[in-house]
C-alpha cells in the first residue's frame, strides 16, 4: 500500500514535469494554438454577450405590452368588475386597470401629442380597460380570449400596428439563435482541431514513448492536460479581452442610449465562468479524442 502511494505521488510529479517540458519544447505551437483558441473564444463570447443582451432588450420591449379593451357603454360598474375578474383569470394577464372614458379621450389626444386647444361637445370615447400581459408572444391568445367575453366592444393593442416589426424581431431572434448555435459549434470544432494539430505534430514522440514502454495513461495524461491548459489560458485571455471590450461598449452605450440599459459588466461573471469551464471541457475532450485516434492508429500499425 505504501509503495503504491509512493508510485502515485511519483506518477503525478512526472506527469506535471512532462506537461511542463511538453510546453517549453513546443512553445511556438503552444503559443499559436493558444492564440487561435483565444480568438475562437472571443467569437463565442461576443455571441453569448450579444445573445444575453438581445434577450434582455427583447424582454424589455415585451414588458411594454398592453392590450386596450374598449367596453360597451351599456355595462354597469358591477358588470365591469366581473369582466375584470374574468380577464384576470387568464394566466398571461398580469394586471388590469380601469380607465374611465374622460381619461381615455384625454389620453388619445395627448398620446398623439396634438395640442388640442379646442373643446369637444361630448366625449365620443368608450370606457377602457388596460390589460398588462406577461409576454408579447402570447398576445394573440389573450386577445382571443378577451374578445369572446361579453361587453367587450373592441380590442386594440400596440403590437397590432407593428405586427411587421414584431415579425421582423421574431425572425431576427430565430436567425440569431441559429447563427449563434452554428458559430458555437464551429468554434468548438476550431478549438478541438487546433489541439488535434498540435498532437498530430507530435506523432513521432508519442510513438517513441509507446516503444519505450510508457503506459497509455502516462502518455495521454500530460497531453490532455496540455490541451486543457492551452484552452484554459486561451479562454482566460479571451475573457480578459472581452471584458475590456465590453466595458467600453457598455460605457458608450450608457452615454448614447440611456433608455437601453445593457447588462452591467459585473453581471457577466456567470458567462465568464461558463466560457472557462466550457473551454476546459473542450480542450480535454479535443485532446483526448485525438490522442485516442493517434494511439489507435499506431496500434493498427502494430498489427494487433
Amino acid at each position, binding site marked *: 500500500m505504501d509503495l503504491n502511494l509512493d508510485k*502515485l505521488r*511519483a506518477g503525478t510529479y512526472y506527469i506535471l514535469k512532462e506537461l511542463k*517540458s511538453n510546453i517549453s*519544447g513546443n512553445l511556438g505551437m503552444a503559443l499559436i494554438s493558444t492564440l487561435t483558441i483565444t480568438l475562437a473564444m472571443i467569437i463565442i463570447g461576443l455571441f453569448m454577450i450579444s445573445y444575453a443582451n438581445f434577450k434582455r432588450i427583447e424582454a424589455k420591449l415585451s414588458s411594454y405590452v398592453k392590450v386596450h379593451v374598449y367596453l360597451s357603454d351599456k355595462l354597469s360598474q358591477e358588470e365591469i368588475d366581473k369582466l375584470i375578474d374574468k380577464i384576470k383569470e387568464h394566466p398571461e394577464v398580469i394586471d388590469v386597470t380601469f380607465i374611465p372614458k374622460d381619461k381615455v379621450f384625454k389620453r388619445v389626444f395627448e398620446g398623439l401629442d396634438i395640442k388640442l386647444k379646442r373643446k369637444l361637445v361630448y366625449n365620443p370615447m368608450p370606457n377602457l380597460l388596460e390589460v398588462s400581459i406577461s409576454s408579447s408572444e402570447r398576445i394573440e391568445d389573450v386577445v382571443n380570449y378577451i374578445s369572446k367575453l361579453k361587453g367587450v366592444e373592441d380590442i386594440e393593442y400596440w403590437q397590432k400596428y407593428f405586427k411587421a416589426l414584431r415579425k421582423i424581431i421574431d425572425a431576427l431572434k430565430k436567425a440569431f439563435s441559429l447563427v449563434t448555435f452554428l458559430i458555437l459549434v464551429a468554434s468548438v470544432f476550431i478549438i478541438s482541431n487546433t489541439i488535434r494539430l498540435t498532437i498530430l505534430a507530435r506523432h513521432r514522440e508519442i510513438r*517513441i*514513448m509507446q516503444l519505450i*514502454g510508457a*503506459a*497509455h495513461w502516462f502518455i495521454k495524461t500530460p497531453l490532455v492536460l496540455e490541451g486543457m491548459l492551452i484552452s484554459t489560458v486561451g479562454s482566460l485571455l479571451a475573457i480578459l479581452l472581452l471584458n475590456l471590450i465590453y466595458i467600453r461598449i457598455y460605457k458608450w452605450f450608457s452615454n448614447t442610449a440611456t433608455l437601453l440599459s445593457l447588462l452591467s459588466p459585473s453581471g457577466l461573471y456567470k458567462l465568464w465562468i461558463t466560457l472557462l469551464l466550457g473551454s476546459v471541457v473542450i480542450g480535454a475532450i479535443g485532446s483526448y479524442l485525438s490522442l485516442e485516434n493517434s494511439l489507435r492508429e499506431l496500434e493498427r500499425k502494430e*498489427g494487433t
Partner: protein
Amino acid sequence: MALLEFNEVSYIYPNGLKAISNLSLKIDRGEFVFLIGHTGAGKTTLLKLIHREIVPTEGTIFFDNVDISTIPWSQVPYYRRKIGVVFQDLKLLNYKTAFENVAYALEITCLPPKKVIWRVPRLLKNVGLWEKRNFFPDELSGGEQQRLAIARAIANDPLVLLADEPTGNLDWDTAEKIMEIFLEINRRGTTVIMSTHNLELVRKYKKRTIKLSRGYLIDDYIP
C-alpha cells in the same frame, strides 16, 4: 524452458515484403547473442518482433512461456518495460536533454524521483556522457547520441536487452567500452541480443552468433 522461443515465425510487412521466413529459434535466460547478416537481412525485423513492435504474420513467439501476440493492448507497455532496446535509428526524444531522456525511461515506471536522480548520473557516466547531460539530442555527435540511446536502454535493468547496431557510429575504443558494459549487464543476468555488422567484435568476443540472410536463419553457432 527457454526465455524466448520462436516457432516457425514469418513476418510480411504491410507492403507485401516478407522480411522473416519460417524462423525457429530458442534463446535462454542469460545468453549473449550476436545477430549478423547483410543489410536488409531481417535483423531489425527480428528484434521488432521480440519487442512486439510488430506481431508475426505466421507462427508464435513465446516470451517466458507467454505467447506475446496474445498480450492485450493495454498490457503491452508493461511487457515492453522488461525489454531494453537500442533502436537502430536511436529514437531519442528531441525535446528532452540527455539527462531527461534517460530519466524518462525510469519515470515511466513511476520510480520515486529520488531514485531517478540517483540512478541517471551513474548511467550517463557509464557511457561517458555525464558532461553532456544538459545537451539536447541534436546537440550531440552521432556517437554520443548512440551512447545516450544505450544508457536509456539499460536504465531499467531490463530482463532482455535488444541492441540494434549499437556501435555503428562508434570508434573501436568506444565500441569496446560499450561491449564491456553489455557483457557486465549480461553477467548480472540480462539476456543480450545484439545485431551488428562489426565482424571484428563478433570475432573478438566469441559469443553465440545467429546469421540471417533474406529473412532465413542460415547459421547459429558458438565459436
